[in-house]
């Protein structure tokens, strides 16, 4: 009689293991009756259908680009190699774009990985936790000279993607089934710099200038404002920062060089 953990490991192997490997079949001896393998297949079918469907919901444009059958095959292979690490399935699929980019049958669609990366960012924006935006009064209390020393924490719905292909245009044309827009896309138009976020109207995908994107990406990665400015950001830095703050793209800040000031002001932020 196997211990419970041993039985559960064996079932995982039978459900998700490489079907061509002999040891993937060993655990059937645990099952009652003479048709354990057929009964186990019911669970395998449900698990794969659930996970493939989770990917389908998160990557609708990818599915339209490759067709339902191709998508099913690719998703099935991805699921077998990468079962989710949690039961929160909105979190499942972070590695699907990387998988597609290296999936030989999809090699002819060079932009597929970029579209998948965009869809994953959209999915994250859709499901990110609700977090109160930064209280600007706290920031104002710092004063202008202190402001340059702060590092911001980005809203969990915010993503910044630099993609080689115009994935935003492809994504929109595919989901709107707009063949004319699709035909007008120039795949060699160069990289796009995207900001993906959620606002009260829903998920937004914005195309930024390279300079604005660099500035925003560094700030949202937690780099201090003074350092980002020292990186040589060119352009309307003040306007960009004002917009980020006004639209709630940052939820918190820290100011390590000004601990004394913030403690004196009664702040307890981290």
């Amino acid at each position: 009689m196997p211990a419970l953990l041993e039985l559960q490991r064996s079932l995982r192997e039978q459900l998700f293991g490489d079907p061509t490997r002999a040891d993937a079949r060993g655990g059937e001896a645990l099952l009652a009756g003479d048709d354990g393998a057929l009964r186990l297949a019911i669970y395998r079918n449900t698990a794969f259908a659930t996970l493939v469907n989770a990917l389908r919901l998160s990557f609708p444009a990818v599915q339209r680009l490759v067709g339902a059958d191709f998508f099913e095959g690719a998703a099935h292979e991805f699921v077998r190699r990468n079962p989710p690490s949690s039961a929160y399935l909105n979190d499942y699929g972070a590695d699907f774009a990387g998988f597609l980019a290296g999936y030989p049958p999809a090699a002819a669609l060079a932009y597929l990985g970029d579209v998948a990366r965009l869809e994953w960012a959209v999915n994250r924006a859709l499901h990110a936790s609700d977090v109160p935006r930064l209280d600007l009064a706290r920031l104002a209390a710092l004063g202008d000279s202190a402001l340059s020393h702060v590092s911001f924490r980005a809203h969990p719905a915010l993503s910044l993607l630099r993609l080689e292909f115009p994935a935003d245009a492809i994504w929109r044309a595919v989901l709107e089934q707009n063949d004319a827009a699709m035909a007008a896309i120039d795949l060699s138009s160069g990289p796009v710099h995207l900001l993906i976020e959620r606002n009260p109207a829903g998920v937004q995908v914005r195309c930024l200038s390279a300079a604005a994107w660099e500035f925003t990406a560094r700030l949202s990665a937690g780099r201090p404002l003074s350092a980002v400015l020292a990186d040589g950001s060119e352009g309307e830095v003040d306007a960009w920062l004002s917009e980020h703050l006004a639209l709630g793209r940052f939820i918190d800040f820290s100011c390590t060089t000004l601990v004394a000031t913030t403690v004196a002001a009664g702040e307890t932020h981290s």
Partner: protein
Amino acid sequence: MTGSTHSVNEHSPIPAAAGIGLRFPHHELVAQGRPQVAWFEVHAENYFGGGAARQVLTSVRRDYPLSLHGVGLSLGSAEELDGQHLRRIAELVRSLEPGLVSEHLSWSVVGGRYLADLLPLPMTEEALAVVCRHVDQTQAALQRHILIENPSTYLQFRHSTIPEWEFMSAVAQRTGCGILCDVNNIFVSASNHGWDGERYLNALPAAAVGEIHLAGHALRTLDNGRTIRIDDHGSNVSAEVWALYVQALRRFGAKPTLIEWDTDIPAFEVLLDEAAQAATLMRAVAGNHACAA
């Protein structure tokens, strides 16, 4: 039962009436139309994030009693529970104050991987100890009792020694948790394994039963010609399951009863009709036998 009499801060118990499992396709209809439904139940995992879905749920909770049904905690895992998963459920319970919280007698996680189905446990003393430990841990984290649902299963293990109905009763007795009696699951499992569904019902401790689930199931023929019942929640409640529900009402009295529908989700009116059918039976049977337990 419905309307604007419930405030969000009021703890709304789930009434002994027919409720409906709320799924995404009906979010807008329920959020805007506020249909006459006694209570709703949702899958906890669908609301771990924020945004529009969570907003709808918060507004639904303002106007209806709400039950929170987990499908991914994996109480039967031999390894430790996923602490982050438990914390996410605890956060939902804190913010929604649901009338009931439930999970399953099953497992889904091993080696840090979620296998995406409610998998069957061997009915052994070891598995019983594991489930009881995890129910204790969950109840401590949530600071309230939960209900455990009997699973639908398609296979059994050779080394099982405890009938499932005794296993369920033992978990309730040892941990103080309640039982979510899924009548469709009893019918499906009894049919798949040659059990007697009524015997299963009669073996459950009536005082522990806090909720009943009803759903449709499908028939599938295996390659060996044997017919298996699949718990796909994709059709009307079958006549046999309604009949077993009547037995459950005779034994347990009127209980909160949920209509679940998860695949090929129909128009909301279809769910209202199923709920009305459950309500009619509850009045006819349990109205006169409410003290039978």
